[in-house]
């Protein structure tokens, strides 16, 4: 099962070994940035084109959705969450469809995403209510729960990380097995389910839960 491992694609002189997931992430980054530069090039206030309308509808939907969860104070975090949403959507769906291994299949990537989310969750809480309140909220509702509350700092991102990693890895494994045993036609609907539906769903869930935890922390 060589497909499951993350191979080293090439080695850079200073950075050392570059794994497949990082390389694919770079490709996704390049595609996203180039696409956004192309799409944003001719924006107009009046008489927007169809492409612009679609773009605005997508960004507007994401902003409304996240603002609905985070509220007005959480507006500053929305660009990052949209970035994660776009990156995950691209990584989960586009990468397998174009023949790459999804980067989210690598635990390093999901762990990195989860660590970022953890930092964001705690930062949003501290920024909103101050360090004192942030420290005190571990002892509520009773001091007895403090260990659990402290553990929650790690548990929440860990669950995010493992959920994403497990889903993508499982989908990938199922699809590879299916491709190995029944290489004809059957993998198409399964690929639609695991790559597109599950990929988008996991991207949505990751961002949704991150924003939900942030709201919880900002209370």
């Amino acid at each position: 099962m060589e497909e499951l491992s993350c191979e080293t694609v090439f080695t850079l002189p200073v950075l050392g070994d570059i794994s497949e997931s990082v390389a694919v992430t770079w490709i996704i980054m390049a595609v996203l940035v180039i696409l956004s530069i192309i799409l944003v090039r001719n924006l107009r206030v009046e008489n927007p084109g169809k492409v612009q309308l679609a773009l605005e509808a997508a960004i507007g939907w994401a902003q409304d959705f996240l603002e609905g969860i985070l509220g007005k104070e959480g507006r500053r975090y929305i660009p990052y969450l949209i970035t994660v949403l776009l990156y995950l959507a691209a990584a989960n769906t586009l990468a397998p469809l174009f023949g790459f291994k999804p980067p989210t299949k690598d635990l390093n990537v999901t762990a990195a995403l989860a660590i970022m989310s953890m930092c964001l969750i705690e930062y949003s809480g501290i920024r909103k209510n101050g360090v004192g309140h942030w420290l005190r909220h571990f002892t509520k509702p009773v001091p007895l729960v403090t260990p659990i509350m402290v553990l929650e700092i790690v548990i929440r991102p860990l669950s995010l990380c493992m959920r994403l990693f497990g889903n993508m890895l499982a989908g990938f494994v199922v699809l590879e097995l299916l491709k190995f045993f029944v290489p004809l036609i059957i993998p198409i609907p399964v690929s639609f389910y695991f790559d597109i539906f599950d990929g988008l769903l996991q991207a949505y869930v990751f961002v949704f839960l991150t924003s939900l935890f942030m709201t919880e922390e900002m209370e």
Partner: protein
Amino acid sequence: MISINMSLVYTIINLVVLYLLLRHFLIKPVTQIMEKRRKLIEDGLKNAENTQNEALQLKQEYENALSGAKEESIQIIEKARTTAKAEYDRIVGEAGNQAGSIIESAKETVRIEREKTMQEMQAEIAGLAVASAAKLIGRNTDDQENQDLYDQFLKEAGESHEDADND
């Protein structure tokens, strides 16, 4: 398969870079455009409302001015009518007075003239009588001549009488 290595650090760096890039190239421009459009629409609506309010205010002002003008015109007409009536009364009264005085003076003149004429006539008749008496005394002529004298006398008297009437 499950191992944590340097890829984690690279991915974090990648994510931060991607966040900065997308924020700059995608989210900021799109949000700005949407914000601009929202502002444009809001401004348009506000302008429309302002214009409507202004129009309503102007209409109110015009209506007020119009009703004021109507009242004023009625007042002016009323005043003019009163003035005209007073003037008319004054002129008619004056005219009546003047006419009365003219008639009065005319009557007076006529009366004086008549008296004067009467006196003149009396004087003339007396003169004539004296003259005719002198003639009768001075010239004892025939009947024919007497008859002529009478006629002449009567004629002169009639002429003088007519002259007095004509005066």
